[in-house]
Structures are given as C-alpha cells and as structure tokens.
C-alpha cells in the first residue's frame, strides 16, 4: 500500500468526500489559497472553488455557530480551528448549540458538522498554542470526539466523521502531520467508537490516544527489552469510548497505564481510568496508573516543555514503578 503523510491522508479524505458529496464545505482560517497552516486543505480551493472552501475572518465563535446553522440546513461543513487552544472560543457554540439541538428540538434537525483542530506540545509553541483539550470537548453529550494517530485512521475517521449526522470534534496533533503510514486508497472509512489493539502483549495494557500512542509503542519496545510485554490500545475515538476493547485487554493483563497528553488533573485519562476500575475491578493487580501533562501551563523553553509533556520515558517509568 502507498504511504502518505498524516496531513496528506486528511487532505485525501476531504477531497474524496467533497467530490462525492457537493454538500461538503470547508470553513476556516487560511485554508484557501494557502491550504491551511498545516497544509491539510492544500489545493482544495483550487479544485472546489471559494464557495466551498471558505477563508473566514478570525472569528472562531461565529465560525462554529455558523457551522451549526449551515449543517441544519443540509450542508456538511468541516471547520478548521487552527489550534486546539482556541477550542474555548468554540465551546459555547459546541456545548450550547451544536450538541443540544438535535435532542432538544426532538429530532427536527441534525447537525452533521465536523470541527477539526490540532493540539499538543513539543513544538515550542508556548502556553497558548500547545494544549490538549480532549477533556473539555469529550465531556459534552451529543458530540462525538475522535483523535486518530495513524494516517490510515486519520483518513478513515475523517470520512466517517463527515458522513456522521452528529457533530464530531476531530483532534489532530501538530507533531503528527509529517509522520507517514500506509493508507488505503478510495473509500476507506473507520467506524467511530472503535478502539484498536495496535500491539499485543500480556503483562500491561497501555491505553493511549493521538501522539501518545507513538510514545506508548516506544515504551513497549523499551520494556520488551526488560522482559515486560505491553499491549497497546489506541483509543481512536474518545466519545463514544470503546470500553469493551479496553476492558478486554485489561482483563487479560491485569494492569493498565492510561496515557493522555491533556493535563492529568481532570483529564480524559481520569474517565478511562475510572471506567477500567469499574469494569475490571476484580482483575486489577495494581491501581490503574495515569499519565498526563503536568498540571502547569505549558512552558516555552525546551527543557521545561520536555519536563511537563508525557513521553515514552514517563510511561516506562510508570510501568517500572510497579517493580
């Protein structure tokens, strides 16, 4: 199979869906001629015109609300929010409009919009451009939330998200755009709400999402060297969460480390850890370990940033702490 960069896989998903369905439109800052600051929308305005690939003013709040309005009238808007740090600006439209209207209006409308954004640290972008805010969006009923790590899933989940009749928040990571992987051509979709076991193992389950899956895989390699066999579960979807796959793995290994790049306190990892403790209580040999970004604004300077964002090393350390 051909290998594509993560950004190219997303671009292909957008192009295919736009070709197949004229109601798919893109709204965002700098997504037109420039093709997006991470080049995910490269050359799409050229192909589909400025009516379907719309450069918007810097107005995240209205951009999101406008997605809701367009979606309820039959369009399928895909909105690009440049950094996840700007999600707070979108949250009113997400929590008070996008997520509620299908339910509150008793099914009279659906809101098939996708809100793409990218988060994460490690690039020296500072406290206002490095956050991972999974926890804020995945708490909201009526939204779906996905965060693929591999290019194939990026393509498959984006296509599924565009076709979903519900609002979907699609979380990317700035350090993933240049990673590559095999990506199926054509109509490849991945079901929202399904995790994947991306490495099998017997001693510990590492549950991760987005870039942290790569760190978990690295940690698994390292630990294999000391005879510890790690199973790695890539959540892919955060809401709905595939509890069954996670729990099946933990029942096998009896130990779990949950890795999420959001701040540890009140982070998405708390939900995953709580669910594991609820559903696999009798099977656990040790408390579920949780790893997240230290509870601090993310500092700019390299040694400081590296100290607060989780990595393979922190995962290895957590596993080794069990002795």
């Amino acid at each position: 199979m051909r290998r594509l960069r993560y950004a190219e896989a997303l671009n292909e998903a957008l192009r295919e869906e736009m070709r197949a369905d004229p109601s798919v439109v893109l709204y965002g800052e700098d997504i037109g001629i420039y093709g997006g600051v991470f080049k995910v929308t490269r050359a799409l305005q050229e192909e589909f015109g400025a009516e379907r690939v719309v450069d918007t003013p810097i107005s995240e709040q209205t951009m999101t609300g406008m997605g809701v309005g367009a979606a309820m009238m039959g369009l399928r808007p895909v909105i690009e929010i440049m950094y996840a740090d700007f999600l707070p600006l979108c949250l009113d439209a997400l929590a008070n409009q996008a997520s509620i209207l299908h339910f509150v209006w008793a099914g009279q409308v659906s809101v098939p919009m996708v809100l793409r954004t990218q988060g994460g640290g490690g690039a020296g972008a500072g406290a206002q451009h490095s956050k991972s805010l999974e926890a804020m969006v995945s708490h909201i009923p009526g939204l779906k939330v996905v965060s693929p790590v591999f290019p194939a899933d990026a393509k498959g989940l984006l296509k599924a998200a565009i076709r979903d009749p519900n609002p979907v928040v699609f979380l990317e990571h700035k350090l993933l755009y240049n990673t590559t992987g095999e990506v199926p051509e054509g109509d490849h979709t991945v079901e929202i709400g399904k995790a994947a076991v991306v490495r099998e193992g017997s001693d510990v389950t590492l549950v991760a999402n987005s870039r942290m899956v790569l760190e978990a895989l690295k940690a698994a390699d390292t630990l294999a060297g000391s005879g510890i066999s790690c199973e790695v579960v890539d959540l892919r979807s955060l809401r709905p969460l595939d509890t069954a796959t996670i729990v099946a793995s933990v029942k096998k290994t009896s130990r779990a480390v949950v890795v999420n790049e959001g701040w540890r306190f009140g982070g998405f990892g708390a939900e995953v850890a709580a669910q594991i403790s609820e559903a696999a209580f009798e099977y656990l040999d040790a408390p579920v370990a949780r790893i997240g970004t230290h509870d601090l604004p993310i500092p700019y300077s390299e040694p400081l940033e590296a100290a607060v964002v989780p990595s393979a090393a922190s995962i290895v350390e957590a596993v080794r702490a069990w002795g």
Partner: protein
Amino acid sequence: MTNAPSQDELVEMFRRMVIVRRLEEKLGDLHKQGRTRGPIHRCDGQEAAGIGATAVLGTDDVATSTHRGHAHYIGKGLDLRRVVAEIFGRATGYCRGRAGHMLIADRATGMLGGNAIVGGGMPIAVGQALALKAQGRGRVVATFFGDGAAQTGVCHESMNMAALWKLPLVFFCEHNQYGLTVHARFQSSIEDLHRRAAGYGMPGVAVDGNDVVAVYRAMREAVARARDGGGPTFIEAKTYRMTGFSTSDMGGYQSGEEMEAWRPKDPIARTRALLERDLGAERTAALAAEAGEMVERAFEQALSDPMPGIEDLADGEYGAGEYGADDYGSAA
C-alpha cells in the same frame, strides 16, 4: 406608500398581535397561580416588531429567535396549541417538552429557532444564510435579537461575515431599552444601534417598532434586498418591554414616568385604531375577541395534553440522520 401591507395583511397582523398579547397575559395569570415552570419571558409591547417583521417572511424563509420569541413563533405560523404545550412541557409540544419556552423550533415553518443564549442565534443565522445562498432559491434568513445582544462579540462577527459574503440575511434588533434590568445607556456606547451597520458597509435603518406598518415596510425592503443578492440589512426597531424581563422579575429598576410615557404607544392599541378607521370598531372588536377565544381554546387543549414519559429519552444523545435536508418550510 411603498411596501405597505394590504388590508388583509394588516388584519392578519392585528389578529396575530392580539394572539400574542393574550398568550402573554394568560402565561402571566398561570404564573401567578404557580402553574408555570422556569422563567418565562413575555414580549408585551413588542408585538408590532415581532409580528410585523415575520409577516414579510415566507414559510420557507428561516428565522432565528431569542429567549423572548413568542411573537416570532406566532408570526412564523406555528400552531398556538403546540407552542403552549411546549411551554408547559407536554409531549404534544413542538419539541415534546424537551425545549421549553425559550428554545422552540419548528422545521415545517422555518422557525429554527428560539435560543436562550443571548446572541446565540446570530452565528447560526449566518450559517443558515450561507446554506440558503448556496441553494440559490432566493430564500432568506431573519435573525431576531435584542439591544443587549447587540453588544455581544458574536453580533460583530456575524455582521462582518454576513456583509463580507453578502448573505441573504436581515439583522432585526428589537431595541426595547433594557437588557434584563440594565438600561441601554449603561450597556451600549451609542443609543442608535443601527448606526453600527455602517462599520460593515451594511444599510442600517431605525424604525418605530410599535408601528406595525412601519416595521412591515422596513422589513419588506430589507427582505427584498436580501432575496435579490443585495446582502444583509440591519433594522433597529425602537420599542419597549411593557412587563418584567421574565416571570421572575422583582422590579425596582424602571422609572414610573418611563413606563407611563410608553403606555400610549402600545402597538396593539395603535393597530386597533388604524383598523377601526377601515373596518369600523365592531368588526375590529370581533377580530380581537375571536383571537382571544382561540388562545383560550389553545390553553385548554394544551393543558390537558399529557406530559412525556421517560421512555422518551431512550433514543439517546445521538441522531441517526433520519430525514433529508429538503423539507424545511414544508408547511408552505
């Protein structure tokens, strides 16, 4: 007079204004009897604005409303019984009791919809207008909001985008002098909000919001511009909220003089006087009486409708995309 309503239209607007007023008064009565639930925001005094503006819209045009939307609901053609049923949380309400009075929507008449987040309807209207523009069928969106909402950030963002993209959208601001309890002079740096339209290269007009004919005419011009691809218009209807901000209003912030000064401008009395000139007092009174009876019947029916059962919640948080996008305004 350009853009003036026909006599039939005026009669219909009067009928609807009376319905709205009786609706509000009935809700006030029932509140006093402890029979309502949650805050209810009456629009007594603002009927000419809401009814005059919606009268110009077709069923397949779209409107977004606010927490104070009863005139928009009635004006857009919603069935009164189902509106009342929703206000009382009944299974027969427009939203099966899930929405309550601030959030009513009706897909068939293009009411999409009420909104209890101040300013919340405006970005949605921008998106709706973008979609209608793409469809190219000449449909328009009217977004209703208050003088308080005009101070929100989304109002600026929405006006900028609507003007930038020449969307088929009318910004209809009901300037009733107050946010909840705060007078406009403590909330807004200028008195005449329509003057802000110039900052977006958008036409802005002020109109006597208690004169239903004036409202109708201004709206008709704006809607025609929108349909013809001329882009958005900002209409500021100067009006006054004659009752509390909601049923929980404890008063004490309005001067008696101010309230007295507005009383003679009551839009219903003014429309009635107008009609009496044409139809005579008797027919006009009969019209009003009929409207009042309709309201009574709607309450009787709605209040004997059943409450939803919790099995209603079984369909859960997600939708399955049950319907297509083409049946908006199907009541047309």
